[in-house]
Every structure is written in structure tokens, then in C-alpha cells.
């Protein structure tokens, strides 16, 4: 099945102003509704690659080579949910603003859409009557608001930068479930950045392994996990510390 890819990254190279190369020659493509995992440790350049696709590189970083071709719009979910929201702006107002500018509606309609989105993401109904500041919500709730803001842009691709790393395990699981079910419903494609191979393996059909700005291995998830070609990939696999099987089965995850 070869459909047209909606995102093509070709030999992408990113460098700091000081000419230091941060990302070398990364290439991959993404098809409609597909999930791709970018895995690696800190300094591997995975987050920068994501920012390049989003088109918002941090100050001082430039794209010095390669192309990014995308047919659809993309939006992003960040690692630190609290940092990703304006602390001085209540969340419904913040989301309404995004809907207003992005979907070009009236203010009133924007608010209705925003509240619907929040409800769909499982945020409490009380937000309808009383808006809250990000500091008054839990980390998990903030992340749901951030996801709602990303979805308000009706993205063709959702870029996720370690969206669950800052959260507790139980909350992490809820957020993962939410993302999976939303993807099934809305059909967006996803690029998922994480250092945890187990999370990537559960969500993505294909993986790209990155190390120090280079792409060292890529392929279909199951193949990659069974027969990693690189020692580094094997190390990442081993770094998911094993747990014995729970008696009576697990309550969730696939």
C-alpha cells in the first residue's frame, strides 16, 4: 500500500549559530493516520527535529540543509504541560483564543467549541461556569488543555514531544489512552518523540532511533525490536527495566 506521504523530511540538517551541527541528515516520511516514533536520549536532536517540522526553531538554531515537505498543518504537544500554558491566562480563555484565531469564528462560537473540546478531553464540567488558571490544575489536566489547544488547530499531524515524561505513571497511561482514542476518531498522523522505547513501541508502527543528531536506525517497530541492527538500539531496549508479569493480568494497555 503506497499512498502519498503527507510529510516528507529529506536530509534535514540543523545547526547552531556557532556553526555547530545539531542534527545531521535526517530523512523520513509519514503517511496519513500513521504514527512514527522518534527515540533517543537527550542531545539526540529529536526535539529539534520536531520543532523544525513545526516551523518554529528555537532562537539561534537554523536549518542549514535538506527539505521538509508537508501537505497538512501540524501542531504540537509539549513535555512540560505547565510551561506550555500562559500562567496568567485562564485555560478556557486561552483555548478560546486559539479557536478564535484558528477557526475564524465569532468569539461566542469559539468559546462553545473550546468548551466542547475540553469536555471531550475529560476536563471537569465546572470549567463552564468558572475558568481556572493553569496553576490551579493538575499536571495531567494541564496536558489535556495543551492537547485541546493542539486539536483546535485541526492538525493533520500531531507532534508530541515527550508529552507524558513529566507526569505520574497512572496519569501517563490516561493521557496515552486519550491520545490513542482521539487519533482513532480524528485520523491525524503523529510524530511521537520519547526516550522510552516501551511507550514508543506501544503507540507507533515505525520507529526512528536517533543519537547525537544522527539517525542511526529506522524501521517497522516489531522488526526493530526483534532484530536491532545497532548496539545503541539494543541498549535502549535493555534500558526498559523488566518487570515480572502481574498475577491476574494487567488492567489496561493493549
Amino acid at each position, binding site marked *: 500500500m503506497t499512498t502519498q506521504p503527507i510529510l516528507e523530511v529529506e536530509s534535514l540538517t540543523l545547526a547552531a549559530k556557532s556553526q555547530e551541527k545539531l542534527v545531521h541528515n535526517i530523512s523520513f516520511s509519514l503517511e496519513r493516520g500513521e504514527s512514527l516514533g522518534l527515540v533517543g536520549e537527550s542531545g539526540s536532536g529529536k526535539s529539534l527535529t520536531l*520543532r523544525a517540522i*513545526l516551523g*518554529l526553531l*528555537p*532562537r539561534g538554531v537554523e536549518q542549514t540543509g535538506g527539505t521538509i515537505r508537508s501537505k497538512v498543518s501540524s*501542531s*504540537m504537544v*509539549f513535555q*512540560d504541560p505547565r*510551561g*506550555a*500554558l*500562559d*500562567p*496568567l*491566562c485562564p485555560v478556557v480563555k486561552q483555548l478560546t*483564543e*486559539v479557536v478564535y*484565531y*484558528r477557526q475564524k469564528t465569532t468569539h461566542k462560537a469559539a468559546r462553545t467549541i473550546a468548551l466542547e473540546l475540553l469536555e471531550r478531553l*475529560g*476536563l*471537569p464540567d*465546572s470549567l463552564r461556569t468558572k475558568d*481556572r*488558571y493553569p*496553576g*490551579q*490544575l*493538575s499536571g*495531567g*489536566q494541564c496536558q*489535556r488543555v*495543551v492537547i485541546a*489547544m*493542539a486539536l*483546535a*488547530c485541526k492538525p493533520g499531524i500531531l507532534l508530541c514531544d515527550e508529552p507524558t515524561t513529566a507526569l505520574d505513571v497512572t496519569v501517563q497511561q*490516561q493521557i496515552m*489512552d*486519550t491520545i490513542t482514542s482521539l487519533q482513532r476518531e480524528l485520523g491525524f498522523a503523529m510524530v511521537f518523540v520519547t526516550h522510552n522505547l516501551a511507550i514508543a513501541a506501544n503507540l507507533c508502527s515505525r520507529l526512528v532511533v536517533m543519537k547525537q543528531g544522527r539517525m542511526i536506525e529506522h524501521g517497522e517497530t516489531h522488526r526493530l525490536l526483534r532484530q536491532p541492527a545497532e548496539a545503541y538500539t539494543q541498549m535502549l531496549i535493555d534500558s526498559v527495566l523488566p518487570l515480572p508479569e502481574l498475577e491476574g493480568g494487567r488492567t489496561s494497555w493493549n
Partner: protein
Amino acid sequence: MMNSKRTLTGAAGHNGSYKWLILALVRALIVILCVMTAVFFLIRIVPGDPAKMILGEYSTPEALKNMHHTLGLDLSLWEQFIRFVKMLFTQGDTGNSIIVGTSSRELIVERAPVTLLLIGIASILAIVTALLLATVAATHKDKLLDHLIRIIPAITLGMPVFWVGILFILLFSVRLGWFPVGGISEGGLGTLHSLVLPAVTIAFSQIPTLVRSLRAQMLEVLESEFVVTLRAAGIPSRVILFKHVLRNSALPTLMLLGVNISYLIGGTLVVEQVFGIKGIGSLLFTSISNRDFPVIQGIALYCALAVVIISLLIEIISGWLDPRTKENQ
């Protein structure tokens, strides 16, 4: 979706919302009491006998005794303090002027409007200019404009405010003739016109620190993740800048303004002297050369009270703007 519908975390419950406000009020009140005590001791920590300073080295013992009585210095320290506090609370006064004989409070109230007007105009000028410069600098980081604006504080920090005043007079009044050389013209617009140059002078001394802090704050906010989120969500840059960035970076600068208000008032007293404005500043210098201790005490007290009250107001405003203040308490 399990328990994601659980209640919102009650970090800032309704019952605790006003606790920070009460705490701030109580603290201001205690500081005011301390300020009063400090004013009382102000002339007593300084070496020398105030009576002798007023009358001069060669006064008769008789005259000295009378002066001690007028100043209440013949009472015990404790009785003096009680008298002082009583007068403050009943009349808001620090005693009658030794020279003019009228109440210090009245003398101060008479001179206050022009000084307050001056401070008001200067503050607005300083804030508006600082906001403008800082926004330009921060949005043009490391470009020529930014470098130029960043040099300003380094140069102006060392400019004595009275000297700036003199140069302004030389340039704008003497050479260009735009403003009067000194003094205050009568009548609404005339008064304002004659206050422009002194206000610009005072604002000039405040702008560098404000620009420096505001620029640093704005850069920090501009780099923060939520700005990236908003940008990624397609919000226009001007909306991000004016609705989100400015608001977030204004808070710390507002606090700085609270600290600086004391310098602002002090600078105003000196600038009045340069421009020959008959405000609190000139009253201070007259009282000093007349050794009019009650009036000096009164000026010190009212200036300090103004600083405390303005700081309190700033604290309340920033608490009201920033939901986090309430949670921290």
C-alpha cells in the same frame, strides 16, 4: 478515562483567596509603625544637641532651656515618644514649625500637590518610555536597535539627576526657549508646561533600570515554552506580544517600580531644587537651613508613608494580576 473527572485540585481554594491581602495589609501597618518610630529617633541618633543646632554655638543657657522645652526635649525619652505618637494619631502632625509657628502638617499639605503632580507625570513618562524601549529591544534581540537601547542604562546610570536638569535647562530653556528656565507658571496649562522639563528629568533617571529589567523579563518570557505553544497554535505575534508577553513580564517590573519609588521621591526633592519649584523639596531645604526639626520630621514621615502605601498598592495590583501570588501565601 478513569478518574480524570475527579475534582480540580484545590490549590487556591476560595476560603484562602484573601489571606494574602490581609497579610499584606498587616505587614504594611507594622512597617508604618516602625517608620513612625524611626522618624522619632531620626533627630536623636544624630550626634549633637538639636537645640544648640537651632540656636547656634553661642546661645545662652536660658535660651537653650527654653528651646529644649519647645522641642519637648526636657521630658524623658519615653514621655517624648508618647507625646509624639499621640500627636501623630490625633492630628497626623509632628508638631508646629519653630520658625513659622504653624502646624508642620499644614505646611506640607500646602506644598504637596505640585510635588505629587511632578511624581505622577514623571512616573507615567518613565513607564511608557521604558515599555516602548524594552519592547523594541526585546523584539530585536542582538540587532542594532537592541544594542543601542542596551547602552542607554550604562551611560545614564551615572548621570546625577540635578546635572541632567541643568543640561536640559541649558538646552531646552536657554538655547531653544521651549520651556521656562525655572519656577511654576500659574494656571492649568501653564503649570503643566512648566512641569514638563522637571518631569522629563526625573523620568530620565528612572528609565534605565526599568528598561534593563523589563527587557530581561521580556526576553525570558519570549523564550518560554508557552509562547512557542501560542505561536504554534497560530495566534498572531502582536496578540502574543501584547496580551501574553507584556503581561507576564510586567509583573516583576512592577515590583521593581515599588522598590524604586523611594528613589523617585528622593530624586524629585533634588530636581525641585534645580528648577526652583516650590514643592516639598524646597520646603525640606528651607527647613534644613532654618533647622526646623518638626517640619523635617514631618517631611520624612509623609515621604515614608507615601512609599509604604504605594508599595502596598503595587503589591495588591500584582497580587490581583497574578493568580500565583495567592497560592504562595
